[in-house]
C-alpha cells in the first residue's frame, strides 16, 4: 500500500515536472569586478546580462527538449587587485558548488589559461558534473593551440587572427618602413609582439622593428618615457595590444607627444578610452576587432537602442558577447538538452547567423570562432546609427569606431596545433 502511494506520488511529480518544466541554467561570470580593471569586468557583466535576457529570458525562456529554460547569470570577482588566476579558479570552484554549468570569462589570458586547465581537470574528475568555459575575450593563441581543451570555446578572434588582419593593412601601406611594438608583459602581450614580428617578417621583410617593449601590466604610472622612445626611434607606426588602464596611459602619452604616426591597437576603445582620446585620436588610432561593421543590421540597431535604454552609461564594448549568448541558446536547442557535454558537442562546427552581420563558425578542431574582423578608425564622422538614430559612439563622446576595412571570416584556414580529445 505504502509503495503504491509513493509510486503514485512520484508519477504525479514526474508529470507536473514535465508539463510546466522550468529549468534555470546558471552561468557563472568570473572576471575582474574590483581593482583597476574592474570597469572592463563590470561592462562585460552588463553585456552578458542583457544578451541573456534578449535571447532567452525576455522570450519567456527557450524550449529545450520540451523544457522551458531560463538563464541566470551569477557574478564572481576574479580580481585581487589585478585579474588573478588563483582567485578566479577559487571562484570557479565556488560557482560549481552554486550549481553553475557554464563559466563566462575573458579578461586576461593568464586567467583564461588557468581556467581552461581547471575546467579540464574538474571534468575529468567529475565526469558526471562537467562545466563548460565560454571565453569571450582572452585571445592568447595558445588557448586554442597547445593548451586547447574540449570544454573551452573562444568567441573572440585570437591575437594571431587579429594580427594577420592588422599586418595586412600595414603591409599594404607603403609609407610604413619601420614599426614599434609596445605590450604588457604577460602571455597575451608577448603573443602580440611575437605575431607582429613573425607576420611582418613574412609579409614585408623590409619593415624594420625598431622597438619591441614589454612593460609590467598595470604598473606604469606614466607612459611618457615610452612615447619618447617611440618618437626617438623614428618609427612609422606603433602596434600595441594594451588594454584597460595601460591603454589609457599609453594613449595619453602618445597623443601628448604628438607622434604623427598611425597607432594600431587591439583595445583602444570604449570604457572611457574613446572619450579620453576624443579629437586627439581622430585618424590616429586604429583598432582591429570583431564588431557590427560599417552597415549594422536592423536587428543590431534595435538591440543597441534597447541596450542603451537599459544601461545609458554603458556601451556594447564586446559585441562578441552577443554571439556567445546567441550561440549558447541555439546550441542548447539543437542538443535538446542543457547538459554541458551535449551543448559542447552542439557548439562544435556550429554556423551561426549573427545580428552583427556576419556568420560565426565554431571550428571543432580547436573551438576557435571565425567571423568577420574589421580594421576600425577612431573618428566622429560617418559613424553608423542605432534604431533611435543615435550614433554608435562610445563613452557618450560622439567618437566611436568606424570600420574602414573588412576581413571576411578572418583567417578561416589558420593552422592549429590542437589535438582535441573528446570525452
Amino acid at each position, binding site marked *: 500500500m505504502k509503495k503504491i502511494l509513493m509510486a503514485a506520488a512520484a508519477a504525479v511529480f514526474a508529470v507536473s515536472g514535465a508539463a510546466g518544466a522550468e529549468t534555470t541554467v546558471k552561468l557563472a561570470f568570473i572576471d575582474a569586478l574590483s581593482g583597476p580593471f574592474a570597469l572592463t569586468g563590470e561592462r562585460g557583466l552588463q553585456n552578458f546580462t542583457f544578451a541573456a535576457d534578449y535571447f532567452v529570458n525576455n522570450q519567456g525562456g527557450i524550449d529545450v527538449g520540451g523544457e522551458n529554460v531560463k538563464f541566470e547569470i551569477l557574478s564572481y570577482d576574479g580580481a585581487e587587485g589585478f585579474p588573478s588566476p588563483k582567485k578566479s579558479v577559487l571562484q570557479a570552484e565556488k560557482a560549481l558548488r552554486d550549481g553553475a554549468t557554464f563559466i563566462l570569462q575573458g579578461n586576461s589570458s593568464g586567467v583564461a589559461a588557468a581556467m581552461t586547465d581547471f575546467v579540464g581537470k574538474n571534468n575529468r574528475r567529475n565526469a558526471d558534473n562537467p562545466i563548460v568555459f565560454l571565453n569571450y575575450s582572452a585571445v592568447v593563441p595558445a588557448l586554442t593551440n597547445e593548451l586547447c581543451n574540449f570544454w573551452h570555446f573562444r568567441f573572440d578572434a585570437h591575437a594571431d587572427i587579429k594580427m594577420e588582419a592588422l599586418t595586412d593593412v600595414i603591409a599594404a601601406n607603403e609609407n610604413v618602413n619601420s614599426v614599434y611594438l609596445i605590450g604588457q608583459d604577460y602571455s597575451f602581450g608577448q603573443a602580440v609582439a611575437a605575431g607582429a*614580428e613573425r607576420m611582418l617578417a613574412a609579409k614585408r621583410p623590409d619593415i624594420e622593428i625598431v622597438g619591441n617593449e614589454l612593460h609590467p601590466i598595470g604598473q606604469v*604610472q606614466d607612459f611618457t*618615457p615610452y612615447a*619618447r622612445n617611440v*618618437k*626617438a626611434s623614428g618609427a612609422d607606426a606603433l602596434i600595441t595590444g594594451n588594454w584597460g588602464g595601460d591603454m589609457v596611459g599609453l594613449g595619453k602619452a602618445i597623443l*601628448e607627444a604628438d607622434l604623427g604616426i598611425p597607432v594600431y591597437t587591439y583595445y583602444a576603445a570604449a570604457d572611457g578610452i574613446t572619450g579620453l582620446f*576624443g579629437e586627439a585620436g581622430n585618424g590616429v588610432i586604429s583598432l582591429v576587432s570583431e564588431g557590427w561593421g560599417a552597415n549594422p543590421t536592423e536587428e543590431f540597431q534595435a538591440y543597441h537602442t534597447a541596450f542603451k535604454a537599459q544601461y545609458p552609461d554603458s556601451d556594447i564594448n564586446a559585441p562578441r558577447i552577443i554571439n556567445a549568448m546567441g550561440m549558447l541558446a541555439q546550441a542548447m536547442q539543437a542538443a535538446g538538452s542543457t547538459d554541458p557535454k551535449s551543448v559542447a558537442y552542439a557548439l562544435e562546427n556550429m554556423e551561426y547567423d549573427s545580428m552583427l552581420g556576419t556568420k560565426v563558425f565554431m571550428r571543432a578542431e580547436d573551438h576557435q570562432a571565425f567571423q568577420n574582423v574589421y580594421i576600425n578608425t577612431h573618428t566622429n564622422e560617418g559613424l553608423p546609427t542605432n534604431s533611435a538614430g543615435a550614433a554608435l559612439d562610445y563613452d557618450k563622446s560622439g567618437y566611436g569606431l568606424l570600420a574602414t576595412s573588412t576581413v571576411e571570416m578572418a583567417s578561416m584556414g589558420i593552422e592549429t596545433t590542437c589535438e582535441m580529445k573528446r570525452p
Partner: protein
Amino acid sequence: MDWGFITVTLLDGVARGLYFFLVSAGLTLIFSMMGVLNFAHASFFMLGGYFAYIIAQEWGLSFWVALPVVPLVIGAIGMVVERFGLRQVHKFGHVAELIFTFGLAFLVQEFVKLVFGNDTKPYAVPELLKGPLFTIGDQTFGSFRAFMIVVSISIFIGLYLLLTRTRVGMIIQAALTHPNTVSNLGHNVPLIFMAVFGVGTALAALAGVIALPTDALQPGAAARLGPIIFVIIVVGGLGSLSGALFASLIIGVLTTMFDASQLSVISIMEAVANLLGIEWSLLERPTYELRRLMVGDLIMMSTKQVGALFPYLLMVLILIFRPQGLLGKRES
C-alpha cells in the same frame, strides 16, 4: 641616445618627482607629528583629481577655477576628518588610528567607484597649456609639465618659508618632535594638528589636480601612488620636508630614467659581443624566439623591470644603513 632625449626625460622625471613631493609633504608632517601613517593620504590626491575633473569638465567651469577651489575644499574635508575622526580614535591608540585611516582609504575608493564609476575619466590638460613649450631635437616638452614644475616649486618655497620664517612654522617644527612640550608651553597643539592635516590633504589634492591629467584618473589612482609616497617619506626622513623633496626627486627622476631606458641583459650581451668582435647567432633571432629559450626570461630582463623595484630596494637599503632617512633628524 641624444641630448634632447636625455634633457626632456630628466625634466619629465623632475615633474614626476615634484608631484610626488606635494603628496608626501603632508604625509611626512602628519606622520612625524601624530605618529600615524595616514593610509588615506593618497586618497585625497585621487579625490583632488576627481573634484577637479567634475568642476573643470563636467560642470564646464574651468581648470583655473578647480586649481584653487579643490585644494581648499579637500583641505576642509581633511580638517573635519582629523577633528571628528582621527582625534576621536586617538584615545584607542595607534593601532586604532591605523585601522581608521585604512578604513577611510577603502571608503574613499568605494565612494569614488560608486559616484564616478570604475572607468578612467577623460580628465585632460587645460586648453591653455596644451601643446609643447619647447622642442629639443625631435622631442617636445609639454607646457603642462612645465606648469606642474612651477606650481610644485612655488609650493615648496612657500612651505619652506612658512616653516622656517614664521612663528606658526616654528611651533609646527617643534611639535614635529615634541608635541607635549609645545602644549605645555600654552600652544594649542590639537588645533595645529588639525591645520597641518588640512594643509597636508590640500597639498595632496593639489597634486591630484595637476598630476592626474598626465596620469589615469580612476579609482585605482590612490592605491598606485600610496606605496611610492610611503617609500619617499621613509627615504627622506620622517618629518623632513627637504628630505621629502630630495627623495621625491631621486625617485621621480630615476624611475623615469628607468622607464625610458632600453637596456636589457641581452642588449648588454650584444654590446659586449660586438665590442669583442664575436659573432653570436643568438642575437640574430627574433625576440619571440629568444623568449622561448630556457633562460629567456633572464636574458630578456630589462632595466624597466629593475626600475619598478628600485624605490622599494632603496627603502630597504635606507632602513638598513640610515634608518632615520636621508635628511631625517630623529631615530625612530
